[in-house]
Structures are given as structure tokens and as C-alpha cells.
């Protein structure tokens, strides 16, 4: 399992290297800061969706590998989100703090994005075993906030779209699918699906 975990760790870093290479090679267009901003933002959303697909996948396959990388992928989601924020502060606002104050007051999508990242920060800080033990039952309730994060992130993305919802619709469809798989009657069919597939395999 450590090998699997290492592979996931490396895989999560590959896009960063790919983007950095493009920026270094001057292949990221005339606005490399915005290129990184958008890629980290979209990367965070993809990682969030992957993280949320692990539980259904575990139920479907019973393979432990999916659940052992859940915390890691959650932390990667937060890291990408943090990088996205840093890109915004550095390259869009050029570290103009008074402009940040204005933006936070006036732009709902900035507020929504900041709130999502704040929740991810709290979830990241309480993702260790000590916190799990200390929080007991409340830990699970707290970490259900990840669903709120998903909704906030999609709203944040929706509000930035200017004229074409194609990409957003794709992400939203995956998100809706992952949420549907969590509705108890649907969730119960997942292990059954596995068993049926196994039986067919033995025929």
C-alpha cells in the first residue's frame, strides 16, 4: 500500500510540473499568472471530485486502496485551492491589499471561494488521527462539510463563467452523479452490483 500511496502522491504532483514547464518554456500564453490561477482552480475541483468518488468506488470494488488515499487526496485538494488563492493574490491583485478588501466586500464569487477554502483549511487541520479521536462522533459531522465545499466551489465557478457553460456543466454533472450515489437506496445497490458482477464472472 505504501507504493500505491507514493504513486498517488507523485500523480498529484505531475500536473504542477507540467504547468511549471509550460510557464518556464513560455508556452503558457501572454498571461502565465492567469494560466496557473485557472489550472490550480480547476485542478482543485477535479481533485475534490476524485476524493468524493473514493467512497462509492470502495463500495463498488471493496478494494481498500481507494480509502487509504482519501485523506491524501483531500489534502491535495486543499493545496491546489491554496495555490489558486496565492495566484489570485500575486498575479491578479498584484498584492494590493486594499483591492483585496474591496473585492471581498463586493464580489460574491470571491466570498464564496474564500469560504470554501476556509472550510477546506479546517478539514485539513482536523484530518489527523488525534483530531479524529478528540472530536469523536462530531468528526464525521464536521467532515460532511465537504459537500458544502463542493456546492460552493461549483457556485464560485458558475459565477465566473461569461458565456459558455460547457465545461462547468460537465463538472456539475459529475458532482450530481457522485451525490446521487450517496442517497441511501442508491448507495445500497453498489455492493449488490459488485456481487452480481462477481457471480457473472464465476458462471
Amino acid at each position, binding site marked *: 500500500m505504501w507504493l500505491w500511496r507514493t504513486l498517488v502522491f507523485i500523480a498529484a504532483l505531475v500536473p504542477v510540473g507540467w504547468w511549471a514547464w509550460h*510557464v518556464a518554456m513560455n508556452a503558457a*500564453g*501572454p*498571461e*502565465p*499568472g*492567469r494560466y*496557473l490561477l485557472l489550472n490550480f482552480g480547476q485542478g482543485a475541483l477535479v481533485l475534490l471530485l476524485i476524493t468524493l468518488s473514493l467512497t462509492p468506488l470502495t463500495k463498488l470494488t471493496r478494494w481498500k486502496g481507494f480509502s487509504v488515499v482519501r485523506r491524501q487526496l483531500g489534502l491535495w485538494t486543499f493545496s491546489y485551492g491554496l495555490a489558486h488563492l496565492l495566484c489570485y493574490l*500575486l*498575479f*491578479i*491583485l*498584484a498584492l*494590493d491589499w486594499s*483591492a483585496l478588501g*474591496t*473585492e471581498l466586500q*463586493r*464580489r460574491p*464569487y470571491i466570498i464564496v471561494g474564500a469560504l470554501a477554502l476556509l472550510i477546506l483549511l479546517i478539514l485539513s487541520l482536523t484530518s489527523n488521527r488525534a483530531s479524529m479521536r478528540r472530536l469523536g462522533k462530531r468528526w464525521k459531522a464536521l467532515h460532511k462539510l465537504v459537500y458544502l465545499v463542493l456546492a460552493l466551489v461549483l457556485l464560485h465557478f458558475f*459565477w*465566473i463563467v*461569461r*458565456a*459558455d*457553460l*460547457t*465545461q*462547468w*456543466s460537465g463538472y456539475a454533472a459529475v458532482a450530481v452523479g457522485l451525490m446521487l450515489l450517496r442517497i441511501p437506496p442508491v448507495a445500497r445497490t453498489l455492493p449488490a452490483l459488485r456481487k452480481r458482477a462477481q457471480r457473472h464472472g464465476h458462471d
Partner: protein
Amino acid sequence: MLITPRNRLTLSENDVTPEAVYLSRRHFMAGAAGLGLAASFPGVTLAGPDYSEVAKAQGPQWFEDKLANTRWDAVVAEDKITPFNDATHYNNFYEFGSDKDDPAQNAGKLNTVPWSVTIDGEVANPGRYALEDIVQPSRFEERIYRLRCVEAWSMVIPWLGIPLADVIKRAGPTGNAKYVRFETLVDPKQMPGQDSRFALIDWPYEEGLRIDEAMHPLAFLAVGMYGRVLPNQNGAPLRLVVPWKYGFKSIKSIVRILLVEEQPETSWHKLAPNEYGFYANVNPEVDHPRWSQATERRLPNSLFRPNVIETQMFNGYAEQVAGLYQGMDLRKYY
């Protein structure tokens, strides 16, 4: 009777060229003279700026013929010109997709020869005209304009074309012609973005100007840039350039120019009326609801130099165009 104020940007080079630029051109000419070029070709005017870095393109014959007689640097900006590669690979042209590099990738399918434009409505001479006939009577001019996108980035582009006023005058506007409406081509086979089911724009893309704005000497119809024919992704073969307004007003690949009495509906205004007004004058004091317009990112920039600069009223053309809006509440008419 339409009276456009004569101002210092009405095409007298000595008046308009900022000293620094003018001197650098003299320097260039002096250098050329030193090489014996001027001496061996007396009477030959030097062909404006140096575009040796620009991807060559063969325009239609009429274009190349007119190019030889271009009035280079007719209007210049003090700002540094954006590299050709950036100006052609970072475009908003939703007919070809919504990402900045989509137009460069998808615009190759657009066939711009032959091209005709319908000019009708409140005009004495309505009709469908071949592009070369529309352009023919005017001399080509090069105009280096700042381009400020509503998304808060900007570039500096050397356009090639003719004043919009020339075309409107030739069409013979009637007394009822109060506004000009422009339309882009609709053809999903050539413009794949028009096929997108999730595109929010209602094709054709439509834009408009008040007649006095359209007749203003700075309003321009471009058929080329960087000393060559327009690349498809930049709005070939005919696009509007209104440098004191946000870029989305400068409609691309125009197939129709209609003179009308009522203020026309425009695409972005239709899509989000609280975000995009009919006027869309560059104005640092009136924010877009989702972002500030006080500053802009002058492109290209880099990670170490975000190049955020202050946005100028009317994109720095206030001296020439502010008179058009005297007494108007620009917060209301954004």
C-alpha cells in the same frame, strides 16, 4: 448635419505622434539613410514599423495593392506594441470557442474570400457590397491603439484599415440614421463555437454605436494588423475597432452594417444587462459587478511582473471622445 470635432488625432502625423516615438522613427530613418537606402531610393517612403517578426500572410490582391500605399503610423500610442504571437493566440472570439486559445486553433476553417457586407437600413445606397469595394475608395491607415478588454487585461495593437466614418458617409445616412448596428457571420460549419449547446450568446453576435460615435475619427474598420492581412482569429476579414470602449464592442467578421433609428440591442447586453451596457466606455470608476475596472493587466506579463497598471478614462482617449458624452451620467449609461 453631423459635426465631428477636429482634434489632434485627426490624422496629422506631426501633431499626433508623441515625441519619443517620433524621434525613434527619425532615428530609424537616419539609420536607413546611413546605410545608403534613402540615397539609393530617393522619394521612397519607409514602410513604417518593423514587422519582420510577424508571420507572413498573403492577402487578396486588392489588399496587397492597397498596402503599398498605406499611411503608416497615422495614429500612434506611446505604449509598447504587444508581440504578434500574443495578439493572435489570446483572443475572445466565442464563435470559435470560449478559451483564449480556441480562436487560434479553430478559426482556420473560416473562409474570408470572397466576402461581402450588407449595408442597409436608413441609407441612400443600400446593398450588398464586396469587401474590396467598401474599402477601395479610402487609403489604408495604420493606427496603433490600446485595446482594453472588459476582463481587465489590455494589449496594444497596430491595426490596418480605414475610418468607419468613410464607409458610413458613402452609404449616405438619412436623417433617421441615429444608430449603427453591426452583425457577425453566422455559420456553425465555419464557426464551431456557434454549435455549442451551452453557449449563452444568441447568434449572430450584434453590436452597435450611436451615429456620432461611429462618425468619430477614432472609430475604425480594420482589415489588417501588424502590416499584414487580419488573421481569422482577430476578426478577419473586417472588424470594428473602437479604442475608447471595451473590446467586446469591437465586433469581428462583420457581414452587416445597418443604420437604424432606435438604439439596437447588443449581444452582451442581452446576455447580462446589469454587467454590460450599450455604451461600454472604458471607465475605471464603474466596476463590472464581478471585478474591478480600476486597473488592468497589460499583456504580455510574467509571474515576476504582473504588469498591473491603472486604467485610464476612455482608455486614455478622453481628450478626443469625452465630448461625445457631455452631460451624460456614465454610471447610468455604462
